[in-house]
């Protein structure tokens, strides 16, 4: 009696004191980003703070100013221009990409975990790129919001979409972006997270004698919890009020109850594990009219009960416990098969299945044995793209896929494996077992890529033609890549490969067509890489040297040997930019895309040496090239300027689609507007800063400290 009343009274006492309190005192707090954990790309260089992802930290610096400021987070690409360039990378499984594909992401963490109520991003230039918001729970990502990308106009905005409520506190968010609709770079200033703090720890400390009771109350109970609870309570009460050791009826009563409880549990577990069993042979329903709605099984010579199917292995019709959704899908598929006899052919079904994405294939495999065999056929798994499923792919998925991929040729594991969801030894095993025929491999932004994975790539995939390891920072033995001999595309953006390894890889692969070594800060002498490319790779089509500070004119001149060169990005190679006479050495190539951002020394004369000999030029970036004048861009309508007609960009390059003249001080806004009218098929970009430094300061500007 005493102990029972104790328990009940303690529950009451506990609830009065604390349980109601924390419902009312749950605080709503707002926080800005404390740290940027990960991102897929950024405009700024790795050693700088301008235009980099770390500018997302803290409160906004420029908002509500609208413009192109270095204190914002800018991504590497915008619009559809990179998709139209020669170096475009194709999707391996186009049917697999989502309705709203995402191109970039950034992962941010906050100081305290909260139940999120609102996520607001401050956009200070070209808003509208955000498409998804994810929240990190314990080992799994939860989608808070998904929406279409848009171009929201030329004004700053705080974008705060409606988010789903989740029942766990979080402090890590991932934002995904799609900037295909935007005319220029999008820039973000800050991210704000508003949420409710979970019950504070200090209140729980005072009651740790009863904390176990407290936790039981708020956690969801599984079904067999009820069976356990009732059994336990009954046993306890029987022990108190009618103990079995006192009399025989009491013992009988206790035994009856216990047997009932045990049998309940037993049958419950059996139903979970075993299933309903077989339909009797030759079964007919009681009501004869029901025969019209049922199928007949010839092997068992009986009708099939609803939700049952014939199992070839057990040679019996088995009762199923499938849900309604499956029945509908299965019924539809079976209808299709039965109505179209031509579709009974395996080849036809496989051809149809080739158009399905991974999720649908898995569902097909669960329909029946026949579909299972077809859906797991290796021929459907020659090209696998797991990037849209980055949030749920774990190591075990690789193990399962391993049984299906005998002819694997293209594998895309980009973005997967965040927060240790995939372990590198699973990847190593997968590569060893399945990837001997692999020709294309992408593991962009994957944490699990370390030296062992790199070595197994090199060992297992001898015929690799495409290798993309963007933003991979876990490796140090890049020299192993020189074992590969058949590479055509090598994308090492933002990795820490060194000069010797890069030169060795280039020398070993004479068939290289596309090379990206942008933002590789550990390459101390980019000239050697460029010279190696010029000497060894005559088929080179595109090369990207973004932010390579060690590249000089010597290296770029060496690239002139590559007569098939169509794309060259030497943006922000400041040493090469001190003068532009190396441009003439590119005249023998077939340039279609030339990015010369921030090469301040390039002047009209240099461009005049190049432009007449590159008639196919489609994209030209002259951002911040101070010395460029309006003359080189277009002809003025005076007689004396006729000699310039031969050289001016807009007049001469009929295929030009993109011209970026942002921050070219000698070209005026009015001239740009004129050109836009005169050449409507050319997209002329002109970025700006709406307020310069001499404007009145924003409220974030601190006064001299007076504390």
């Amino acid at each position, binding site marked *: 009696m*005493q102990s029972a009343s*104790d328990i009940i009274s303690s529950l009451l006492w506990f609830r009065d004191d604390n349980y109601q309190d924390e419902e009312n005192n749950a605080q709503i707090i707002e926080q800005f980003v404390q740290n940027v954990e990960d991102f897929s790309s950024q405009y*700024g*260089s790795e050693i*700088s*703070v*301008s*235009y980099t992802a*770390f500018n997302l*930290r*803290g409160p906004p*610096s420029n908002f509500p100013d609208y413009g*192109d400021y*270095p*204190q914002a987070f800018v991504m590497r690409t915008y619009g559809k221009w990179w998709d139209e360039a020669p170096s475009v990378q194709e999707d391996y499984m186009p049917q697999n990409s989502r309705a709203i594909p995402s191109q970039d992401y950034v992962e941010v963490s906050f100081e305290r975990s909260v139940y999120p109520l609102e996520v607001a991003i401050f956009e200070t230039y070209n808003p509208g790129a955000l498409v998804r918001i994810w929240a990190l729970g314990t080992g799994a990502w939860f989608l808070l919001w998904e929406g279409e990308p848009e171009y929201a106009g030329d004004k700053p905005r705080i974008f705060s979409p409606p988010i789903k409520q989740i029942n766990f506190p979080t402090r890590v968010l991932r934002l995904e972006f799609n900037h295909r609709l935007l005319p220029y770079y999008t820039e973000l200033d800050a991210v704000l997270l508003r949420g409710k703090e979970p019950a504070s720890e*200090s209140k729980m*400390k*005072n*009651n740790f004698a009863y904390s176990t009771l407290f936790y039981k109350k708020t956690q969801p109970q599984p079904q067999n919890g009820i069976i356990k609870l009732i059994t336990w309570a009954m046993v306890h009460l029987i022990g108190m009020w009618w103990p079995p050791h006192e009399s025989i009826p009491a013992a009988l009563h206790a035994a009856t109850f216990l047997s009932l409880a045990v049998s309940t549990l037993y049958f419950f577990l059996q139903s979970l594990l075993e299933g309903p069993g077989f339909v009797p042979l030759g079964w007919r329903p009681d009501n004869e009219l029901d025969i019209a709605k049922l199928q007949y099984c010839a092997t068992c010579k009986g009708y099939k009960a609803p939700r049952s199917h014939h199992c070839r292995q057990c040679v019996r019709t088995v009762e199923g416990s499938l849900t309604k959704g499956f029945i509908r899908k299965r019924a539809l598929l079976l209808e299709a098969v039965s109505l179209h006899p031509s579709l009974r052919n395996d080849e036809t079904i496989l051809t149809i299945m080739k158009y399905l994405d991974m999720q649908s294939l898995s569902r097909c495999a669960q329909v029946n044995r026949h579909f299972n065999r077809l859906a797991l056929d290796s021929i459907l798994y020659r090209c696998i793209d797991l990037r849209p499923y980055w949030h749920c792919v774990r190591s075990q998925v690789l193990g399962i896929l391993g049984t299906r991929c005998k002819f694997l040729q293209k594998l895309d594991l980009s973005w997967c494996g965040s927060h240790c969801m995939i372990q590198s030894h699973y990847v190593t095993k997968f590569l060893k077992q399945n990837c001997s025929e692999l020709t294309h491999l992408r593991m962009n932004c994957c944490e699990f890529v370390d030296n062992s994975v790199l070595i197994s790539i090199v060992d297992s995939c001898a015929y690799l033609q495409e290798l993309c390891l963007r933003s991979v920072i876990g490796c140090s033995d890049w020299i192993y890549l020189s074992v590969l001999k058949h590479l055509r595309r090598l994308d090492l953006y933002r990795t820490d490969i060194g000069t010797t390894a890069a030169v060795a890889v280039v020398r070993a692969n004479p068939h290289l067509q596309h090379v990206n070594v942008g933002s590789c800060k550990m390459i101390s002498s980019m000239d050697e890489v460029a010279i190696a490319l010029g000497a060894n790779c005559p088929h080179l089509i595109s090369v990207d040297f973004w932010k390579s500070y060690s590249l000089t004119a010597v290296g770029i001149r060496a690239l002139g040997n590559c007569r098939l060169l169509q794309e060259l990005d030497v943006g*922000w190679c*400041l040493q090469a*930019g*001190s*003068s532009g006479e190396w441009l003439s050495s590119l005249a023998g190539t077939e340039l279609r895309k030339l990015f010369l*951002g*921030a090469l*301040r*020394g390039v002047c009209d004369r240099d461009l005049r040496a190049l432009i007449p000999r590159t008639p196919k030029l489609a994209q030209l970036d002259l*951002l*911040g090239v*101070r*010395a460029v004048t309006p003359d080189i861009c277009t002809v003025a309508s005076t007689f004396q300027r006729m000699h310039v007609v031969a050289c001016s960009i807009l007049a001469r390059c009929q295929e030009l689609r993109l011209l970026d003249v*942002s*921050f070219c*001080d000698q070209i005026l806004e009015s001239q740009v507007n004129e050109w836009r009218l005169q050449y409507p098929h050319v997209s002329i970009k002109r*970025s700006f*800063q709406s307020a310069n*430094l*001499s*404007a*009145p*300061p924003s409220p974030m*500007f*601190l006064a*001299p*400290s*007076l*504390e």
Partner: protein
Amino acid sequence: MQSIFWTGRVLSRAIRNGLSSLNSAAELNVSNKKHPYLVSVVCGFPKDIANGRTHKGQFGDDAWFSTQFSNADVIGVADGVGGWRAYGIDPGEFSSYLMRTCERLVRMGHFKLSEPGDLLAKSYYELLEHKKPILGSSTACVMILDRNESIMRAANIGDSGYMVVRAGRIVHRSHEQQHYFNTPYQLSLPPPGHDRNVLSDRPESADTSEFRVECGDVILVATDGVFDNVPEPVLLAEMKRAQTVAGSGAAGEESEAQRLQAVANSIAWMARNLSFDGCYMSPFAKSARQNGIDAIGGKPDDITVLLAIVAL
């Protein structure tokens, strides 16, 4: 029986509460130990008041900043070299961007407490990363107070400088770095192609020094507009006025800052008046004569006075 049980539970809960609050209080006490910090004020005049910039952070071609990060106070001034105006480049742009970038790096924590020269270098290289081409040159002087160790570290390049006064005496003074007369060391970003014609000193050639500070030290960081026009004894006298007994409580802080501001204002006003005085033997005139140039009077220039006092 029950009542004893209940009482026991209440008592034990009270004891547990007390213990936990004792723990948290002990932690608080540790972090409440006092560290010295800087109280700083600024005053200045552009050379050309009618057309000069009067925006926060700039006085004409000069620029300054004052900020803090966790346990460091950082202050600095920069003087844009006026010769660029002849080439169509705004001299104040470079110095202003330099100071704003220093401030941003400090606020983000991207600096080393013990290396103000490194902060200056980082800020200079950061200017290269701007999309907008920034051209020009300037001198600079940056000082970092390490609160935990009460050590002040300074990095100076050019003819701006600092002066530290303690108990009525000058205890530290920076030295002017000059190539030749009126041509100070300077950080510069010349237009491409003109690299050889333009004097450009590397940020690594900055003069660095460090010294201990005590509560009550007055520190003056100023551009050459002040040091070239106001003689040292006058500056010393002014800064003595600013000295006060530090740590006099919250009300004292307000008046301390006000007193400091008054002193800064008077130094700046004096410098301005003297700069336009035609027949006064200024320090600038003295050093000109030493270099064989017959000059007299003050030197009209932008004036920036950043005055700070170490308080507890």
